[in-house]
């Protein structure tokens, strides 16, 4: 089987911002990713589906070099991430937003400081007013303007997730990697987040890789989808075309 998947729609149009080729990653004897090949096209929302433990989080961590791939290449905005030096990697990371599955808020800082932390360090010379405006804007986007001065420990799980999302989008990155943005949220908030993801894409022409188990969210935001099975791509294509694949395993994902 090719590393591009058994079910694959031809002719993905547009300029790729991330090109993953034959990506392999193992932890000891456990082969998590066994060779993935796909592109993320500029301006698209690409959904990654797959069972729990199928290596979705590992995949996006490899893209930002939090983990190094064993084999294969990852090209982000024209850079082979494996060959970058620390400085170059830092520069590249400034253009990538990363939402952790766990949120990963800094728990020694307030919500405000959490949001300002990347802002002050990456956008050098930004004015205090801009910092304040951007912080409020991001918080309002996730509907949590009231949480400004709270500590992460005072927030609920869903709220923490939304703050983490605010921290991710505050820098207007050109690529965003979302690890389960709506998991653990109620249907209404989840819908709002899906709308937000679309809005960000439409406004800034952001390219996003979105890991999710939440089918309504996937349907709302997906331009294309990628289905992982046992460390390989099982299917890729538009949501519609994947939903129509007559494969019992694929159908299990779309059964509501």
């Amino acid at each position: 089987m090719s590393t591009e998947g058994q079910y694959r729609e031809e002719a993905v149009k547009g300029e790729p911002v991330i090109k993953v080729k034959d990506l392999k990653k193992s932890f000891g004897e456990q082969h998590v990713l066994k060779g993935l090949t796909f592109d993320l096209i500029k301006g698209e929302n690409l959904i990654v589906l797959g069972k729990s433990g199928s290596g979705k989080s590992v995949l996006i961590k490899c893209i930002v070099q939090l983990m190094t791939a064993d084999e294969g290449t990852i090209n982000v905005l024209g850079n082979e991430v494996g060959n970058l030096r620390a400085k170059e990697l830092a520069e590249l990371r400034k253009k990538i937003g990363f939402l952790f599955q766990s949120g990963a808020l800094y728990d020694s800082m307030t919500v405000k400081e959490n949001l300002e932390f990347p802002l002050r360090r990456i956008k050098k010379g930004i004015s205090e007013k801009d910092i304040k405006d951007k912080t409020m804007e991001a918080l309002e986007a996730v509907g949590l303007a009231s949480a400004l001065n709270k500590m992460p420990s005072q927030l609920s799980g869903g709220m923490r997730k939304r703050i983490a999302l605010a921290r991710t989008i505050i820098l207007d990155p050109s690529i965003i990697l979302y690890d389960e943005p709506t998991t653990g949220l109620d249907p209404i908030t989840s819908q709002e987040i899906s709308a937000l993801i679309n809005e960000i894409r439409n406004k800034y022409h952001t390219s996003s890789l979105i890991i999710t188990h939440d089918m309504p969210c996937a349907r709302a935001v997906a331009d294309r989808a990628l289905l992982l099975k046992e460390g390989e791509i099982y299917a890729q294509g538009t949501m519609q075309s994947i939903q129509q694949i007559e494969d019992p395993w694929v159908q299990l994902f779309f059964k509501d």
Partner: protein
Amino acid sequence: MKNFTPISKVKNIATEGSVLLSERTIARAEDAKTFFTRAGNMTLFILQTLRQFFSFPFEFKEFLKQCYEIGNRSLPLVAITGAIMGLVLTIQSRPILNDFGAESMLPQMVAVSLIREIGPVITALICAGKIGSGIGAELGSMKVTEQIEAMEVSAVNPMKYLVVTRVLAATLMIPVLVLFADALGMVGSWIGVNIKTELNIALFFSRAFSSVDFIDFIPAFIKSFFFGLVIGLVGCYKGYNAGKGTESVGIAANSAVVLSSLLIIIVDLIVVQITDLMI
């Protein structure tokens, strides 16, 4: 002839024995290997920290915050310990000096032992427990909950933001805490002297420092810097390299205390040897 052990059984025991022996040898070799890997990792960590020391910009605000955390938060503990050490040392030494008819030497004796050895070492050990475990647990939990990774992806160097600031703060604050402990130790000692005899504080201090030269302070002071460096580095190293899962936080904190305490004693030995040769 009863209970004759068959040859095959003897053979079995022999092979089992040799297998066990070779397994143990392999285990020893593995132990040695992990020891050297760890030592190598730690050296690498230290080198990385050093490199970040000299790279711009310095996280000054975080550094000040850490100085406050490390210095201010440990002050009461160090004060109480220092005072009690001085008091106890005085009470314990009195009978011996009495036997030699040198009770009036009590302030000098306490001053020398407190400033040269007991002040720095006890303070450092206490701080290894308080500060070392604190840093280990803090960075450990940040590691486990992906906060360190979150820093990395937002293009902030966690070595610089978290490690350099803490190591530097510990290196500068421990000597201050040691001085503080020394001072309170002397006050404790004065109280100890006054339990049995009456000696006013001015006279006590002039006697105490009659035998303590400036040169006595220097090795002790230098030593405290190294103690601070050890506490900061070990705490950060253990926290930064914590494993996965919440139990790793406890392990990181615990091993930070154990390793830094041990290293403090070893550094003490080395510094004493070196200064002994020099003076």
